[in-house]
């Protein structure tokens, strides 16, 4: 910028500070203007209103047989809804926290009074596959919960990571019981 010498000349003159100030104000205004133009472009890539409008779903859980479950689709992502047996609940409650990579009690992972229903994200925290085990016919791993076919992560009956490369338990999703047989996810 120095070759024209016009701007530096003024900068070193007696009114240099005023010129510097004007330049800063002009550049700052231009930067704000550019930001105001760029933000709508960037924000247009965020989830749109119609996508956000689909962020709540209602699921009828009455037909899910004991010991089995379903995969619901919430915001385009799979969600496990599993109807646990008494044995599975007992196993989950008895599991020692000290052996867990991401310790959490079973009570923290289900709603009180609805212990038979385990509702979590169905996305393995390792690299995003869907672990098998929602149906009793699928391999459920050593801990009777889920077994991820991609890299062998094993989850227990509270969907906590017990073995394999995944770093965390299957994340919980926000949900509420509308009545005993109907839930709202989201």
């Amino acid at each position, binding site marked *: 910028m120095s*070759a024209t010498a*016009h701007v530096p000349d003024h900068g070193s003159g007696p009114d240099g500070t005023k010129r510097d100030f004007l330049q800063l104000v002009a550049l700052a205004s231009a930067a704000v203007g550019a930001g105001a133009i760029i933000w709508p472009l960037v924000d247009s890539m965020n989830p749109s*209103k119609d996508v956000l409008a689909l962020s709540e779903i209602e699921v009828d859980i009455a037909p899910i047989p004991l010991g089995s479950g379903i995969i619901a689709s919430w915001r385009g992502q799979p969600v496990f809804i599993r109807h646990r047996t008494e044995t599975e609940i007992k196993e989950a409650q008895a599991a020692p926290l000290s052996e867990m990579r991401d310790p959490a009690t079973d009570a923290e992972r289900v709603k009180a009074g609805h212990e038979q229903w385990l509702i979590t994200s169905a996305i393995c925290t390792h690299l995003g596959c869907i672990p098998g085990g929602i149906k009793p016919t699928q391999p459920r791993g050593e801990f009777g919960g889920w077994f991820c076919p991609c890299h062998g992560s094993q989850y227990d009956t509270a969907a906590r990571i017990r073995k394999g490369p995944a770093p965390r338990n299957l994340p919980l999703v926000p949900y509420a019981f509308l009545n005993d047989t109907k839930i709202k996810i989201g």
Partner: protein
Amino acid sequence: MVGLHHSDVKNPVLHWIDTRLPVVTMIQKEYGSFPTPKNFNYFWAFGGMAMVTLLLMIATGIFLAMSYTPHITMAFDSVERIMRDVNYGWLLRYAHENGASMFFIVVYVHMFRGLYYGSYKAPRELLWILGITIFLVMMATAFMGYVLPWGQMSFWAATVITNLFSAIPVIGEPIVQWLWGGFSVGNPTLNRFFSLHYLLPFVLFGLVFLHVAALHITGSNNPLGIEPKGPQDTLPFHPYYTVKDSVALCLFFLVFAVLVFFFPDLLGHSDNYIQANPLQTPPHIVPDWYFLPFYAILRAVPNKLGGIALMFASILILYALPWLDTCKVRSATFRPIYRIFFWVLVVTCLVLGVVGEQPPEGIWVPLGQVATAYYFFHFLILLPVLGKLERTLPLPESISQSVLGGGPLPTGAASKPMEKA
């Protein structure tokens, strides 16, 4: 000329880059110290505005394309979804739609500026030719963009414009089917229009680069139309014209904002908010405003091939302009008779625009024919003859003499930039 560039840049990182790829030196030379005639008026700001508009169109277009679906059953709904659901989608779409109008406004002023001040004359013929090419590519891009929302006007504009090619004898019909990818405007047509509408702005960008490169060889014309004779006639582009162009850009954005935020549909057609229906033509169909003069020329001749040939000729004739105008004096300031006819041409083009908007009946038909005839008379007969006959006014010695002698500026204030340059 192999070897590292000798860079004057002080910053070590920029110096390292500049010795290997002298971009910093180039920007400094072409946009910093570039000697620019010191007598520009604000009409010289429209080229810069056009470049900014192109960049805005590309930016908004890229983000619109992320939410648009080029399929005949989904295109219309996807545009509505952009307007209602996508964050700031309404702003992007209105800015893109009205940006096209702003682009044409700015480019038309830019072109008439060139006509008035004789900017197309030697040695700037190629600069002008590149400009006309930019104009043609712009029109093609705008037309294809207009088809994408798949409204009634989109569909029928596409039908009418592509059918123009059916006037070509013998091969016309196969060409039109090739353009359509079928036997009518349909999904293949929409797909290829989307593809080309995305491609052509980058072609435009390349053409603009060549346009500016050619400009920086010949240097800019100026309101007096005489060449700068030395440093006393010029100013460095920065800060003098970067600042002047910035002032013009602020006004440009003001007008643009009023259009986008208060009258977003002023220049559009309400029929385009009805989804395309291939079985029903709207009662009154017209192109977007910027095509109206050419549309009027198309309809001036009651013969299919003749009208189409005349319409294309009205643009192509501009390529020959540097050789049709035989007068050596550039600026209309010193051409008292040309100056009158220049304004007659401006009025003629406006009349053609109004005629293009009206249904082709009654007084509008002969009016369009007279205006069309005058348009061609101006370029084909008036300009070659006037150049030989007109007595031009005496040209000033130099830009500097004209600025200092004619203006009310005190000597000290006016000579200050001269010392610096």
